[in-house]
């Protein structure tokens, strides 16, 4: 059974966990970031980070250095550090973008982070010690539309990005002030900053909503608005495999094992797919709505006559959805474990709920649905 937490009626735009998931940072669809601490079996609001003036679009929490980076529609990003008195102090990042920021991610070594924006570019930011501020470098070519999602390769150099120009790309974000010279990977050997390592089209044309590198960095997967899931295996000559599903489009995904991904989106329920080198197949839907339907039929007869008795109307009570989430899922993140072996993942939705799904039950019950 998934753990459900409700944070009000406002949509949860984004969320991030700290290193031991005792604290949670989320944004309730406004300019604030709320930090919650887990105490006595409940989430208690411990801090409100209110530096942005417009909607916050991305939050990422660096597990080792315990810093939070947030980005918003006001073209700004802030890096928050925890002060000894328990308050979070913001440091402005000079992104030099003239449109909204859409997504932000810390690099694996937490020395830099990347921000995608509506200015059709990615801002890769690192800390300049001598001036004591965060500076940025831009990756522009050949992005033609808003960057919707980004993800880092484990080598701290390569960056995957999806955009609303229907393309998924892998760039090099090598910054000589911060990084050491990288070794050659399956994606290529020459990695100057801003170099386009690979570009893939999203099939029949569909905005790329979410993108993710696998734990080893050999594979990259993305989800598009044409309800498809695509996986590219760089180790296998950049072979592209696409699965067109018949559900509503997915908007977010993450690898949970080297060959499994969990996706979620407008269907309001997460599902797990597996890639075996040739095909992408559905393994399981995490929302077990089958048992719920069985329970529902027992009570609907009683409900039917009760509404007939009360109001003399035949009320079809189909307002609430059978899934746990009542509206679109906005983000799925790893809660416990790593991309190589994730035991629990969390989803935040437009219905204001945060749900933690246990993935271990998948292995125990086996593949029971297709």
């Amino acid at each position, binding site marked *: 059974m998934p753990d459900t937490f409700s944070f009000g009626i406002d*949509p949860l*735009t984004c969320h991030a966990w700290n290193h031991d998931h005792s604290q949670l940072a989320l944004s309730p*669809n406004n300019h604030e970031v709320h930090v919650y601490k887990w105490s006595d079996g409940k989430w208690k609001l411990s801090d409100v980070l209110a530096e942005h003036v*417009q*909607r916050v*679009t991305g939050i990422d929490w660096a597990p080792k250095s315990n810093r939070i980076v947030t980005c918003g*529609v*006001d*073209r700004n990003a802030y890096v928050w550090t925890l002060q000894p008195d328990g308050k979070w102090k913001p440091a402005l990042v000079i992104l030099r973008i*003239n*449109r*909204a920021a*859409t997504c932000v991610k810390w690099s694996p070594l937490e020395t830099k982070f990347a921000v995608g924006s*509506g*200015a*059709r570019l990615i801002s890769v930011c690192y800390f300049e010690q001598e001036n004591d501020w965060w500076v940025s470098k831009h990756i522009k070519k050949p992005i*033609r*539309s*808003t960057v919707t999602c980004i993800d880092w390769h484990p080598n701290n150099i390569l960056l995957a990005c999806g955009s*609303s*120009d*229907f393309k998924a790309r892998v760039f090099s974000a090598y910054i000589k002030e911060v990084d050491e010279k990288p070794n050659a990977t399956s994606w290529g050997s020459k990695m100057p900053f801003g170099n386009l390592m690979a570009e893939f089209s999203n099939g029949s044309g569909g*905005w790329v*909503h979410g993108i993710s590198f696998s734990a080893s960095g050999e594979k990259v997967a993305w989800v598009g*608005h044409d309800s498809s899931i695509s996986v590219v295996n760089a180790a296998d000559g950049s072979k592209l495999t696409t699965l067109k599903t018949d559900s*509503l*489009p997915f*908007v977010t995904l993450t690898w949970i094992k080297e060959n499994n991904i969990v996706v979620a*989106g*407008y269907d309001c329920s997460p599902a797990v797919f597996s890639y075996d080198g040739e095909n992408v197949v559905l393994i399981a839907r995490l929302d077990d709505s089958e048992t719920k339907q069985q329970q529902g039929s027992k009570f609907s007869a009683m409900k039917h006559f009760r509404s007939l008795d009360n109001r003399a109307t035949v009320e079809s009570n*189909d*307002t609430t*959805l059978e899934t746990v989430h*009542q*509206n*679109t899922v906005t983000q799925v993140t790893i809660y416990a474990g790593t991309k190589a072996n994730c035991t629990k993942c969390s989803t935040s939705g*437009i219905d204001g709920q945060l749900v933690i799904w246990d993935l271990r039950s998948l292995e125990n019950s086996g593949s029971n649905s297709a």
Partner: protein
Amino acid sequence: MSTTLQPYLKAVRQTLTAAICLENFSSQVVERHNKPEVEVRTSKELLLTPVTISRNEKEKVLIEGSINSLRISIAIKQADEIEKILCHKFMRFMMMRAENFIVLRRKPVEGYDISFLITNFHTEQMYKHKVVDFIIHFMEEIDKEMSEMKLAVNSRARISAEEFLKRF
């Protein structure tokens, strides 16, 4: 004739369910702005292909989608002059009160009688499947209302003519 109604509404419902997948998207043309892309139409890559679902030449639905907004335009069956006038007045009545309807557009799209504009803000506050239910219900009811009004006009005309001519 009515055998085409159910498949027609089913097709509209399924297209709407797919097109109502909207997300909050800040304008990439004007900084700090958030506009319904289907109305602004400045960035072609953000617009979906418009779909027209026709029951016959007179009755059709145009669904235009985009990344953060959806426009549905309905052409209502108007067989004769009376129905044309009734339809025009009825739609005008509703469109003047568009604010209360939330998803109604104040002016219909060219070539249609009534238009709805649904944005990501609406889908954040309301259930998507209930909004689709509302549109379909609207389409079903509109024909019934029009027939009822036409009957009412005819019967009222008959009664008043009868009363008037009783004098003579």
